[in-house]
């Protein structure tokens, strides 16, 4: 395992993650438009929506019940996860390279990212 192979692996992984996320968002989006295309929408004033779109467990639960907005949100959640998985893969990669310094560096980044995500769950 060298840096270039590691990076190229990470690059492929990121692209796969984005494609999966985009497909999920698109699927949820089509369902949303089929059901709600004639609904009036206004986003002029910010109102924080219900918890089923604002926490990981809420999103997954609502999506399982076929809520189209929640399915789109699952896709967006997958998208947010791709760079986090990228950092996690880098931790393992540096560990395999026996690069102690950069294993620690990427672990620090991972912990910071988890902080934000745990906030949301």
């Amino acid at each position, binding site marked *: 395992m060298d*840096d270039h192979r*590691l*990076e*190229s692996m*990470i*690059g*492929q992984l*990121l*692209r796969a*993650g*984005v494609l999966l*996320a*985009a497909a999920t*968002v*698109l699927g*949820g*989006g089509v369902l*949303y*438009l089929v059901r*709600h*295309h*004639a*609904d*009036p*929408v*206004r*986003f*002029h*004033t*910010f*109102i*924080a*929506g219900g918890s089923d*779109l*604002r926490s990981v467990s809420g999103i997954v639960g609502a999506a399982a019940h076929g809520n189209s*907005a929640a399915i*789109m*949100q699952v896709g*967006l959640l997958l*998208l*947010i*996860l*791709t*760079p*986090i998985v*990228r*950092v996690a893969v*880098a931790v393992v990669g540096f560990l395999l390279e026996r690069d102690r310094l*950069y294993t620690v*560096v*990427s672990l*620090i*980044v991972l912990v*910071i*990212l988890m902080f*934000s*995500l*745990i*906030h*949301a769950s």
Partner: protein
Amino acid sequence: MTALEFTLIVFALSTLAGFLGALTGLGGGVVVVPALTLALGVDMKYAIGASLVSVIATSSGAAAAYVREGFSNIRIGMFLEIATTIGAIAGALLAGRVSTHALAIVFGLVLAQAAYMSFKGLTGHDKIVESDKLALKLRLGSDYPVDGQRQKYGVRNVPAGFATMFGAGALSGLLGIGSGAVKVIAMDSIMRIPFKVSTTTSNFMIGVTAAASAGLYLERGYIDPRVAMPVMLGVLIGALLGAKVLVFARVKTLRIVFGVVILALAVEMIVNGITGKV
């Protein structure tokens, strides 16, 4: 407006934003937010939430192509991501405390700077430097392909670059943008990293930086899928098209046109922020 009309208009605007963002190298976020707020009257918090998500999509989507070329430097990227992610969380926390008017004014100022960059062109030096002591210790130097050969390069001024990266992260978390231009300045101008390495590494870092504030955005409800869905899909498709066209586009003319548009948006954002319309 019906949900269908809103989705289609936002999708069209976002595709255009992603296309122009890729062609000029400034990213789609800086255009999407003013387009949504000024043209459709969408609250800035929804706009920055949707923009942040699209930033992750374009950064991650383009990463595979950049990596193949062998320019990006994963060590520099990872090390500086410590600064950008902490900055991003600080920025996202701040975004929840300041008024929408203040956000609009700050956004306008960032747009003005982007307009300036667009006129001037994102160009940098390619002078190779030797690594200083700290950069050697962190093993930040590497090599990159120049005319088919591997050219070694060094890195300098790590503390100043690190501090600037914190600022780039904070702007990203505050405004839902990638702030790639600031990242490039930090690496190219301050740390003396070759331009091509700086831009590709910056692109790699943008997604991780944005992911750091995304959890906080989600929890606060800034990411509304009804707004984010057409933005994310539009910007992603626009960016992919832009990258394809980039090879034979007349980038210079385009940059000036784009600069004028952004400058107009900047003025409008600032005026609307001051008069309290946004």
